[in-house]
């Protein structure tokens, strides 16, 4: 079969991209989703706090997803559920399979990558100890509790203060588990501040910064874990060990964009984000292949995902209609001095919209600092920031008019500087 735009993944990114592409006038769009319903990870994020930017109200994850699902259905955007993409060729031929039709191929003019991310596993963290049952990624536990109504444990220690970990500390407490402590390797939390307040502080769950799990006890099921404080090189400090009896260890230690399909088709990845290198149109190095959402870089808010996906959808639409100018070299965007990366990586003044949002994360907690933008060596903007933290995404806006005024630029650099 053939389609104009194939969207890989029917989560928040895929849905918003599809809606935007349809609204931009593309008729043949196909969303390919591996799960049995649209909405992606939002289906298990039953807490509130979604949609303040997009809908100006506070929704839960499933409600936020439903808004987009309804829109997609209203626009009669076709989707396939329970369908897994096996391979995408450089020629944008997508090999998929599902129970109804077996193996088949879909030829697409443009592809939007929206596969999301996965959680870092115990193995990748290399936590020593036994390998019993009772060690879950926070997301797995979230699925059990929120979608199956089942408890994966009664007495819980959480490693990692990413948002899912914080949210699960509250969820499991509310559902009757005893969450004893959240340990965080870094000297700051990886999650949003509001989540520390309403998920930990509200329930007197201690957050131990600069701590990690150094041993897991229990041969069949987790019986306890040992925490230790770590030094500035993140090495456990002898003598600071504390043993916690528990039957469950939840891990919330970071998310990794899931780009196996992308690399197979020759999409270049950014080693910092593990997501594709994209230009201002969110197009990868493979022409007509776009990326958005957590497969591109891990977001803190779904509202930003929707915004980004809309841009990818619009550009993919322009591409299939032949309205997207051919990509030039573009001005390289660089993050320096604490700015870990930027999305996009280049900006083409011909192709960019009047306003281009550049998103990034910082590598440490910065207080009372300035976010500076340089055109070549010239500082063109300096914005005071009370606080910036790795757990929260930052952004700046580039204006097309200003860039055109500046003429041929070698680079645009974003830096953090002292006041």
């Amino acid at each position, binding site marked *: 079969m053939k389609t104009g735009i194939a969207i890989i993944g029917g989560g928040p990114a895929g849905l918003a991209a599809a809606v935007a592409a349809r609204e931009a006038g593309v008729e043949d769009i196909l969303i390919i989703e591996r799960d*049995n*319903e649209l909405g992606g990870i939002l*289906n298990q994020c*039953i*807490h*509130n*706090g979604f949609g*303040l930017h997009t809908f100006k109200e*506070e*929704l*839960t*994850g*499933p*409600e936020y997803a*439903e808004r987009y699902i309804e829109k997609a259905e209203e626009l009669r955007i076709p989707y396939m559920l329970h369908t897994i993409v096996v391979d995408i060729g450089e020629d944008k031929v997508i090999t998929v399979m599902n129970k109804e039709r077996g193996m088949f191929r879909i030829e697409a003019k443009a592809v939007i990558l929206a596969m999301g991310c996965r959680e870092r596993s115990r193995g990748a963290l290399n936590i020593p100890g036994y390998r019993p049952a009772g060690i879950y990624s926070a997301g797995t536990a979230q699925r059990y*509790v*929120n*979608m*199956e*109504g089942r408890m994966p444990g009664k007495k819980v220690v959480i490693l990692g203060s990413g948002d899912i970990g914080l949210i699960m500390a509250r969820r499991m407490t*509310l*559902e009757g588990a005893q969450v004893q402590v959240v340990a965080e390797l870094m000297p700051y939390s990886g999650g*949003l*501040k*509001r989540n*520390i*307040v*309403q998920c930990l502080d*509200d329930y007197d769950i201690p957050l131990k910064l600069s701590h990690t799990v150094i041993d897991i006890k229990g041969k069949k099921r987790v019986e306890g874990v040992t925490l230790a404080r770590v030094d500035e090189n993140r090495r456990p400090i002898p003598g600071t060990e504390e043993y916690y009896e528990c039957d469950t260890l939840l891990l919330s230690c970071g998310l990794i964009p899931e780009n196996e399909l992308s690399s197979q088709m020759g999409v270049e990845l950014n080693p910092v984000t593990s997501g594709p290198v994209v230009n201002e149109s969110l197009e990868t190095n493979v022409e007509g292949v776009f990326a958005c959402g957590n497969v591109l870089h891990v977001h*803190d*808010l779904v509202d930003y995902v929707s915004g980004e996906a809309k841009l990818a959808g619009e550009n993919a639409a322009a591409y299939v209609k032949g309205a997207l100018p051919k990509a030039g070299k573009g001005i390289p965007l660089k993050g320096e001095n604490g700015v870990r990366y930027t999305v996009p990586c280049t900006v083409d003044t011909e192709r960019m919209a009047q306003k281009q949002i550049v998103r990034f994360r910082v590598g440490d907690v910065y207080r009372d600092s300035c976010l500076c933008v340089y055109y070549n060596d010239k500082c063109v903007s300096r914005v005071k920031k*009370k*606080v910036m933290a790795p757990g*929260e995404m930052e952004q700046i806006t580039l204006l097309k008019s200003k860039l055109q005024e500046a003429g041929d630029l070698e680079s645009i650099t974003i830096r953090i500087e002292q006041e």
Partner: protein
Amino acid sequence: MKMKTKELVCIGCPLGCNLKVEVSEDGAMEVTGNTCPRGADYARKELTDPRRIVTSSVKVQGGHLPCVSVKTETDIPKDKIFDCVRALKDVVLTAPVEIGMVVAEDVAGTGVRVIATKKIDKA
């Protein structure tokens, strides 16, 4: 006049503003550090009548999933959170469930309704 200073993190939105509340003896409050008016509202409420929206899940029979996510329609007093969850313990819905469907009226005597937040189709 004596003042008490309280520091809070606003939970109104993901920005998480650091709020400083100066409470004078007569109970008057001055909030700084907020980026929007909701921050000031939150601070006042948090110091006088702290409230939270509660999200949980209840059982569903005959649906494509065995349970459905729910939330309190508005925030409820913080000290009623566990009563609210307890009140949902024995609730069993029957599929289909629509978003917004009332799961419990006046939960734990708060005067607040609990509503479904996800569509559950018949299996």
